[in-house]
C-alpha cells in the first residue's frame, strides 16, 4: 500500500500529489479504480444492511402490533442496541463473523432496527381504525389488509424512517474499516495512517455525497410509490 503513497510520486513530478494538497484532481485520476472499488463496497454494504434491516424491522413491527406485551420488549431492545458504540459492536461480532463484510452488515442491520422499527410502528399505528374496519368488512384477511391498506397508508412514516436509517448507515459504514470492510472508510483510514490528505478528503466528501444522493433517491422513490401525495414534506 505504501507504494502508492504520496512520497512515491513526489520523486517523479511536482504536482498536487507531491505537495499533499487536500484537493487533488491527480489523485482522483490515478486512483480512480481504487475509489470505484471502495464506493462499490460502500454501496453494497449499505444496501444490504438497510434491505435486511427493513425486512427484519417489518416483521418485528408486525409482531409488536399483534402481541402487545412484546411491543415494549422489541422497542426497548432496539433502543438499547443503538447506544452500543459501533466500534464495540463490530469488535464483539468479530469472534463469530471474522474479518468480513458480514461483521459490518450484521452490525449495521442491528443499528438500523432502532429507527426502522419505530418508524414502521408509528406509520401502522396512524392508520385510521375505520379504514381498517372497512377493509375487514370487505373481506380482507390480515395479510392482504397489511399489504393493500395498512402499509400504503403507513408509507410516509416508513419512508421518513428509511431515509434517516439509510443516511446514518452510509455514515456508519466507514467504521467498518476496523475489519477492513468499511468501503470509503478504508480509504479514509489508510489515508490518515499515511498522512495522505487528498485520499482522506476525497473519500470523506464522497461519503457525504453518497448519503445525500441516497436520501434524494429514496425521496424520489417515495413520490413514485405515492402518486396520490405529490406534496411530500422533505
Amino acid at each position, binding site marked *: 500500500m505504501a507504494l502508492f503513497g504520496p512520497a512515491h510520486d513526489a520523486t517523479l513530478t511536482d504536482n498536487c500529489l507531491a505537495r499533499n494538497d487536500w484537493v487533488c484532481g491527480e489523485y482522483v485520476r490515478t486512483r480512480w479504480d481504487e475509489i470505484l472499488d471502495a464506493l462499490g463496497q460502500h454501496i453494497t454494504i449499505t444496501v444490504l444492511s438497510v434491505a435486511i434491516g427493513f425486512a427484519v424491522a417489518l416483521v418485528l413491527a408486525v409482531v409488536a402490533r399483534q402481541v402487545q406485551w412484546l411491543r415494549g420488549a422489541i422497542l426497548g431492545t432496539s433502543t*438499547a442496541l443503538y*447506544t*452500543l*458504540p*459501533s*466500534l*464495540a*459492536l463490530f*469488535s*464483539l461480532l*468479530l*469472534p*463469530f463473523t471474522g474479518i468480513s463484510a458480514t461483521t459490518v452488515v450484521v452490525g449495521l442491520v442491528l443499528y438500523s432496527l432502532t429507527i426502522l422499527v419505530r418508524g414502521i410502528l408509528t406509520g401502522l399505528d396512524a392508520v385510521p381504525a375505520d379504514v381498517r374496519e372497512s377493509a375487514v368488512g370487505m373481506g380482507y384477511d390480515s395479510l392482504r389488509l397489511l399489504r393493500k391498506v395498512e402499509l400504503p397508508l403507513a408509507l410516509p412514516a416508513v419512508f421518513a424512517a428509511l431515509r*434517516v436509517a439509510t*443516511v*446514518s448507515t*452510509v*455514515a*456508519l459504514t*466507514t*467504521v467498518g*474499516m*476496523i475489519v477492513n470492510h468499511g468501503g470509503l*472508510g478504508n480509504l*479514509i*483510514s489508510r*489515508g*490518515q495512517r499515511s*498522512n495522505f*490528505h487528498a485520499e*482522506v*478528503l476525497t*473519500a*470523506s466528501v464522497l*461519503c*457525504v455525497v453518497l*448519503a*445525500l444522493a441516497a*436520501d434524494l433517491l429514496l425521496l424520489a422513490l417515495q413520490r413514485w410509490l405515492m402518486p396520490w401525495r405529490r406534496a411530500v414534506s422533505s
Partner: protein
Amino acid sequence: MAHALATGGELVNALLDGLSWLADGDNWSGPTGVGTRLVEHLWITLLSMVIACAVALPVGLWLGHLGRGGALAINISNVGRAVPTFAILAILYMTPLGLSMWTTVIALVLFAIPPILTNAYVGMREVDRDAVEAARGMGMAGGQLLRGVELPLAIPMIMGGIRLATVQVVATATLAAVISGPGLGRIITSGFNRQDVPELVGGAIMVGALALAVEGLMALLQRAVDPMRRAGRRASRPDRDQGMPLVQEEVVGSA
C-alpha cells in the same frame, strides 16, 4: 441448529472472558488501564457536551423564539447525520491539531450540535401559541417571554435533544481510539491489535455499559428538570391552579 448452539456457547464464553478481564484489578490501574481510560472518556464527553450546548442552545432557542431559520435548524440535523464522525476525526488529525485532545473534542462537538440545535428549535416552535399570545397580552416581551413562558414549556424537548446527543457522544467518543485518541475505545483497539479477545470484549462491554448507564441517568435528568412536572406535583395540592397538568401532558407527549 448445532452450529447455532455452538456459536451461542462461544458468545457466552467470550462475554464471560471479557467480564473476567474487567474483574481483574490489574487491568484497571496504570496509564493505559480501564480507570484512566474511563476518566478520559467521561472528561471528553463532558467537555464536548458543554461546548456543544454552549454553541447550539443559544442559536436554537433564539431561532425558535424568533420563528426564523427553520430550514437551517431542521436541515443541520439531516446534514449532520450524513457526515461520518470518523471522517471528521481523520481530517482533523491531519491538521496541526494532530493527536491533541481537541481533535476528538471538536469532532464530538460537531457531532453533538445538530440534535441539540434542532430539538431546541422544534421545542420552542411547538410551545402552545395560545400560551405565548396570553403572555404577550399580559405585557411580557422578548427575553421575559422566552425565559418565563417558552423556555419552561420547551424544556422536555430541549432535554430530549441533549439526552440523545449525550448518549451518542458517549458511544462515538469510542471512535477516537482509531486515531490513537483518548477514551475507552483504546481498550478495544488494543485488544484488537494484540488479538486479545478477552481485552477486546471487556472493553466493548465497558463502553456499552457506560452508554446504557448514561442513557438511564439522562432519562432521569430529563424528568427531573422538567418544570411542568414539578408544577404538576404542586398543582395536586388543592390551593393550586388545576389547569397546568393539561398543558403538561401536551408538552410531554411531544417530547
